[in-house]
């Protein structure tokens, strides 16, 4: 079996794929492990922190990004982007976030909304 080069290549393919999938699962489990309910959301534009809001109080914030706006809502301990005028609306489709490290990203606007912990203030990612 080892002598056939085609079969050896297929075996290598499977090893390669399996190792990538194992890495994916390990990263996923690691992410789950560190995800606890966070206390705050941190809003960043272009990497600069432009706002921090507690998840415990309901607020509506309009974030102006590079090309438009994102409307951030905090409701019942969860944060979500209610609407945005970016073309793809991926941040809106991201849905509700409330766990440490969870992020809603708007690439066109260069805006990220990240849930962070209560006291430490930063998830260790």
């Amino acid at each position, binding site marked *: 079996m080892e002598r056939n080069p*085609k079969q*050896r*290549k*297929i075996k*290598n*393919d499977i090893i*390669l*794929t399996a190792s*990538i*999938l194992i*890495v*994916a*699962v390990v*990263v*996923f489990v690691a*992410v789950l492990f560190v995800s606890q309910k966070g206390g705050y959301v941190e809003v*960043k534009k*272009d*990497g*600069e922190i432009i706002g921090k809001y507690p998840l415990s109080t309901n607020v509506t914030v309009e974030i102006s990004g590079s090309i438009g706006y994102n409307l951030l809502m905090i409701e019942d301990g969860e944060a979500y982007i209610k609407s945005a005028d970016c073309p*793809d609306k*991926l941040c809106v*489709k*991201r*849905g509700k976030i409330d766990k440490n*490290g*969870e*992020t809603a*990203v708007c*690439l*066109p606007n*260069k805006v*990220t909304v*990240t849930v962070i912990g209560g006291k430490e203030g930063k*998830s260790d*990612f």
Partner: protein
Amino acid sequence: MISNREKIKSLSLSALLCSVALILSYLESLVPPFFPIPAIKVGLPNLVIIFALYKLGFGYAVTVSVLRVFLSSLLFGSLLSAAYGTAGALISLLIMFLLEKLNCFTAVGVSIAGGVSHNIAQTLLAMIIMNTNEIAYYLPFLLLSGVVAGALIGVGGAFIIKKINIKERFF
């Protein structure tokens, strides 16, 4: 010296492959993104890239890939998508070229490595551009989608590589 005839042939062959890749990009841009994560798509134009890599060599693959990314960003995307696209395309092409030269994987394995490295390169670039590392959260999904997309393209690509003998037809 390369003769004029050879030059014309390679120019028109690159243009032909590039237009096929552009048509595939256009078809793909018609499908709305249904995952809440950017960059999850099959990458149909890579069928052309992997075909060029195996049948015509690294030079053709780079030319077609860079032109394709540039033109499709101009037509269907933005300057930012050109930056992301070029980073992903060049890194994945380099990885695929090295693995192909190593000669210990099939076209499917090479394509999977290409898909995964494409997604990793884009994630890294997004982390640099947006100056944040929270995007690493998406990495497991991007690895998985890279494997799935790479496998699909690899199976399709291997079929085309076997069926079309472009050198015999063209030269």
